[in-house]
C-alpha cells in the first residue's frame, strides 16, 4: 500500500486536495441530511390511516345557500348512494383521515379539566363509521342505533352524548394500563359519555396538533348533515370504484340538484393530495442530492483526469520501476479513497452542524447516526466509480514513456 507516499503527495498539492475534500464534505453533509429528510417525509407518507383505504370513496359536496332540510336530504342521499351496485355502506361524516380540516377537542376523565391529558380528533357521522371505514374494534362494542343524536341537539344541549368510542392510543392516555370500557370522559357538554368501545386506530385528518398527536381520535354518535363537513364516504367493492364514482353525480342530483359536487375521489387520491407537498419536497431533496452527487463525481473525475495527465511521465516511471497496471489503478483508487475519507470525516461533522441548524430553524428531528455510514458508503462508492475511468487510463500509460524526452 502506498498510503504514506500518497499522503505526502497530497500535502504537496494541498489546494487541489483541499478543494475536492471540501466538495465531498459539503456533499456528505447535505446528502446525509437530505436522505434523512426524504426518509422522514416518506415515513410520514406511509403512516397508517386505520381505515380500509382500498375500499373507500369520498364525495365532497356543498349546498347552495342555507338548507333547513339538510339532515333529511342527507338521509335521502345516503339511501340513494347505497342503491348503487357495489356500494356496501355510506355515511355523511364531518371529517376524514388525511382530509385536511379537522374537528378537535380536549378530552379528560375529569370535568372542566384545564390540563386535559389529550386533545383528540372528533369524528361524527350519519351512519356507521366503524363499519364504513373498516375500523378494527379491539374492545367493547359499536354504537347502538338509539345512541345517535343530531349535532344541532348536542350543540343546543337539548340532548347529551351517551357513548363514545376512542382509539387505543387515546384510551391509554385517558386510563393508562386500565380497561377504559364503561368509564366516563368529559368531551362536549357537562354530562360525560361513557367509553363503549375501543378501535385500534384512526388517524387524525391533519398534523395541526403535531405529528406525534396523530393517533389520538374519538368517535361520537352524533349525526351530521351533508353541509357539515361536506363529506360522503362510501365503502365499496374495490374492483368497482370507477364504475361507482361515475354514478354518484346522477344519484345525488336525483335527490337534490342544488348542490355542487366538489370532489369524487378514491381514498388513494385523498392520501396523495394530502401528502403532495411532502412528495414534492422529497422529490426536490432527491433531485438536489443527485445533482450534488453528480457534481461531486464530475469533480473527482476532473481532478483525477488532471492528475493523470500531469503525472503521465511519473506513471511511466513507476511502470518502468516495476508497477503493474493494477498497481497504477490501485494507486489512484487509494488516493481517491483517502480524499473521500477526509471529506467524509469533515462532512460528518458538517452534517451534524447542518442538522442542528435545521432543528433550530425548522424543528426537524435529530439526525439519526445511521445516516452517516449510509452517506459515507455512498460517497466512497461514488468516488471509486468516478475515479475508475481516469485510473484505468493511467494504468494504460506505457512504461516506455519514462525514456521519452520531454
Amino acid at each position, binding site marked *: 500500500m502506498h498510503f504514506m507516499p500518497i499522503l505526502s503527495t497530497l500535502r504537496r498539492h494541498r489546494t487541489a486536495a483541499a478543494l475536492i475534500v471540501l466538495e465531498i464534505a459539503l456533499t456528505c453533509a447535505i446528502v446525509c441530511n437530505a436522505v434523512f429528510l426524504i426518509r422522514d417525509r416518506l415515513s410520514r407518507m406511509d403512516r397508517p390511516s386505520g381505515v380500509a383505504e382500498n375500499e373507500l370513496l369520498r364525495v365532497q359536496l356543498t349546498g347552495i345557500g342555507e338548507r333547513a332540510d339538510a339532515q333529511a336530504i342527507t338521509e335521502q342521499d345516503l339511501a340513494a348512494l347505497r342503491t348503487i351496485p357495489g356500494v356496501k355502506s355510506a355515511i355523511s361524516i364531518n371529517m376524514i383521515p388525511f382530509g385536511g380540516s379537522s374537528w378537535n377537542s380536549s378530552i379528560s376523565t375529569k370535568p372542566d379539566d384545564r390540563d386535559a391529558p389529550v386533545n383528540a380528533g372528533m369524528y361524527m357521522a350519519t351512519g356507521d363509521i366503524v363499519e364504513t371505514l373498516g375500523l378494527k374494534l379491539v374492545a367493547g362494542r359499536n354504537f347502538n342505533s338509539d345512541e345517535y343524536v343530531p349535532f344541532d341537539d348536542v350543540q343546543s344541549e337539548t340532548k347529551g352524548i351517551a357513548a363514545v368510542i376512542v382509539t387505543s392510543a387515546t384510551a391509554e392516555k385517558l386510563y393508562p394500563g386500565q380497561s377504559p370500557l364503561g368509564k366516563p370522559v368529559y368531551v362536549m357538554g357537562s354530562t360525560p359519555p361513557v367509553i363503549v368501545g375501543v378501535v385500534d386506530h384512526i388517524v387524525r385528518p391533519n398534523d395541526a396538533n403535531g405529528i406525534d398527536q396523530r393517533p389520538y381520535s374519538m368517535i361520537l354518535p352524533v349525526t351530521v348533515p351533508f353541509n357539515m363537513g361536506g363529506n360522503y364516504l362510501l365503502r365499496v367493492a374495490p374492483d368497482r370504484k370507477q364504475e361507482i364514482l361515475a354514478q354518484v353525480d346522477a344519484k345525488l342530483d336525483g335527490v337534490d340538484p342544488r348542490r355542487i359536487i366538489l370532489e369524487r375521489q378514491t381514498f388513494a387520491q385523498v392520501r396523495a393530495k394530502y401528502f403532495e407537498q411532502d412528495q414534492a419536497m422529497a422529490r426536490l431533496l432527491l433531485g438536489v442530492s443527485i445533482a450534488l452527487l453528480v457534481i461531486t463525481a464530475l469533480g473527482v473525475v476532473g481532478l483525477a483526469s488532471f492528475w493523470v495527465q500531469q503525472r503521465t511521465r*511519473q506513471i511511466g516511471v513507476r511502470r518502468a520501476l516495476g508497477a503493474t497496471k493494477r498497481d497504477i489503478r490501485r494507486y489512484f483508487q487509494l488516493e481517491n479513497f483517502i480524499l473521500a475519507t477526509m471529506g467524509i470525516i469533515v462532512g460528518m461533522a458538517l452534517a451534524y452542524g447542518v442538522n442542528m441548524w435545521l432543528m433550530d430553524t425548522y424543528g426537524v428531528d435529530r439526525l439519526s447516526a445511521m445516516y452517516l455510514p449510509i452517506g459515507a458508503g455512498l460517497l466512497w462508492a461514488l468516488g471509486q466509480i468516478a475515479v475508475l475511468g481516469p485510473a484505468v487510463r493511467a494504468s494504460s500509460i506505457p512504461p516506455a514513456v519514462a525514456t521519452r524526452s520531454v
Partner: protein
Amino acid sequence: MFQMQDVSKVFRTEMVETHALRDLSLEVKEGEFVAVTGPSGSGKTTFLNIAGLLEELTGGVYKLDGVDVKALDDNARSKLRNEKIGFVFQSFNLIPDLNLFDNVDVPLRYRGFGRAERRKRIESALERVGLASRVKHYPAELSGGQQQRVAIARAIAGDPKLLLADEPTGNLDSQMAREVMQLLEELNASGTIVIIVTHDPEIAARAQRNVHIVDGVATDLERGPALVKPKAAEAKAS
C-alpha cells in the same frame, strides 16, 4: 545473462512502417560494462526500451537471466523488470512529490518487501551514493548530480543484475558526470551488468565494450557487425 538474438522492432502506422531495430544480436555476461552509441534516431532508445522490457520486440529472441521475455504477459514483464533491472534516466525521473527516502522506496514497494527490509535497502543504497543524510529532502532541493545519484540509489536498491542507463550524464556538468560515471563503474565492479546509452565518446571510451547503432543495425566497434559473444566468452573460446 543478457542475450538478444536477431531482435527487431518495427513501428507501424497506417501509412508508415519504421524499422527501429534490425536483427540485433547481443550477448552480455555478468560484470560487463557496455556502451551503446549512435546518432539521434538510430535506435538506441528503442534498444534500451526493449532491453529494459519497456517495449515488446517485434521479432527475434531476448532472454534475460534465462527467461524468454517474449512469452511473458504484462504483469510478468513488470515483475521481471522490477527484480532484474535497474534504470537510470537522463532526466533522472525522480518523483518530485516524494522525498529521497520515498523515491528510492518506489520499486521496493512494488517488489513487496516488508517495511524493515525496505528501510535497510533504502538506507544502504543512499549511503552508497553518499546521500544518506538527506533522506527527507525533496528532489527539487538537490543539484542535478545529486538527483542522478538518488536515481542510481533507486536503481540499485533492489540489487538488479542489469543496470540500464539512458544518457545518465547528459544533463550534468563534467564534474558531476565524472562522479556519476565513477559510481556506475563501482557498481559494475561489484558484478552488475551496466549498459549505458550515450552520445559522449569520452563516456563510451570508459566502457569495456562499445556497440554502435546506425539505422537500427548494431555493430561492435571492435569486432564488426556480428555481435554475439561477450569478451569473456570469446577469450575462453580462443
